[in-house]
């Protein structure tokens, strides 16, 4: 049984057009700068009108050019979101900068 803790898909340019191609499903996503440094880990939850698509379109409009994203469709979006945040903290010693501004209650993981 293999368990994939980290999101390792290729980055895609964060533009409204690219985001509009996404499915309207629930899931998690990451936003990075042009070099691939993660800025934010988000979730498209049950109250997102069009799931990942509407969340990423909003992110693209708010953040402007020069950003990248990747997504994972996942019905367990909340526990996966917590997991990605904890793994990031374990890997980098801190949350992504835009999550650190308003951190959710998190535990600690020490992934092998």
């Amino acid at each position: 049984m293999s368990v994939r803790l980290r999101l390792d898909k290729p980055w895609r340019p964060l533009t409204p057009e690219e985001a509009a191609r996404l499915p309207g499903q629930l899931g998690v996503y990451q936003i990075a700068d042009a070099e691939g440094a993660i800025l934010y880990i988000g979730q498209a939850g049950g109250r997102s009108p069009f799931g990942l698509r509407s969340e990423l379109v909003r992110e693209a409009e708010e953040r402007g050019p020069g950003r990248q994203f990747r997504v994972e469709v996942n019905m367990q979006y909340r526990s996966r979101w917590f997991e990605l945040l904890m793994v990031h903290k374990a890997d980098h010693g801190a949350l992504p900068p835009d999550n650190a501004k308003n951190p959710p209650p998190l535990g600690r993981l020490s992934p092998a």
Partner: protein
Amino acid sequence: MDFEPSEEQQLLIDQVRRFVREEIIPLEAKLDPDAAELEPADHARLVEKTKAMGLFGIDIPKQYGGPDIDIVTRVLLAIEMAQHRAGLYVPCYGTFGGAGLAQIFEANEDQKERYLYPTLRGEKKAFFGLTEPSGGSDPARAIQTKAERRDNGWVLNGAKIFISNADRAQYGIVFARTDASKGRAGITCFIIDSDTPGFHVRRVVHTLRSSHYATELEFKDCWVSDHQVLGEVNKGFAVANDRLTRQRIPYAAGCIGVAIAAHEMAIEWAKMRSTFGEKLANRQAVQWMLVDNEIDIRTARHFTLEAAEKARRGLPFKIEASIAKLTASEGGGRVVDRSMQIHGGMGMTKDLPLERWYREMRIRRVGEGPSEVQRMVIAREILGSNLR
């Protein structure tokens, strides 16, 4: 036995019911449908309310500063506290306090000072580490985590899985094998601080409950002193068994609460919704589903209160607790399923709480001892304990 609430119990039931309807449900409407936590400010405000109601720390015995609530009343209140979207696993979002399975009332005075009292005051959180990758239904045989005597203490090596809150807790109670030759008489319970070298929370375990996750733990040459043994060496299985048996009663009550909420929604929908020119409530197929809901709820309620009453009177209640857990988890699942069917397409959406209850209620047939183990416990009781 008469299970009608007394006047005093009814006052408490009404109080908790109002709290759920006026405080919890309006806040919940603004949260993600799978949320398991209130905003911190809302949580703090509601904790003050439950304190003012005299119901904070609802599971804490009176001698430790908890409210003086017997287990029958506790069941009646648990049924009310579960009647909202997150209510099955996070009744009232924890605003009534409590430490669940990890409350260590059998601890010695030193351990109580270090762990129990801070937990009861809400300063520390704890986890309950029993289940292992080798199995959870038969912990006496499945426990492979070893604790070996070394340097005036114990060294733990092994793994645990499906452990809730281990990533956020300051300590946990962990069961390990201290004598491989003795089966259930070779298990010891340890109190493990989360910052002990060799203790690791390795990963999140995702389940049907998107709102919450379990964790997988690893113990790698994790040394603890003799002061961390809870109770006596090789008598840890009794600690686990006591909690698992007791937990079955409130566990059943939560299932009943959610079943009642789903059933009430189905009744309202059936009275309102028309198909082919007729209210659903006038169709025999729907009426029979509602009748079956009512029977499942009443059956589970009767057996759960019977188990609680026996526990309250200090009588053996193991078989009754198993019957309660079995009827409430299986019956509750059927009630939610029928209620979704009555709601049609709307029942499948995240607009309503039914789909969350459906996923979470499914876990209840496995958690805290699966239905098959409950039937085994009952079979042993009625056929004799020597049955193999």
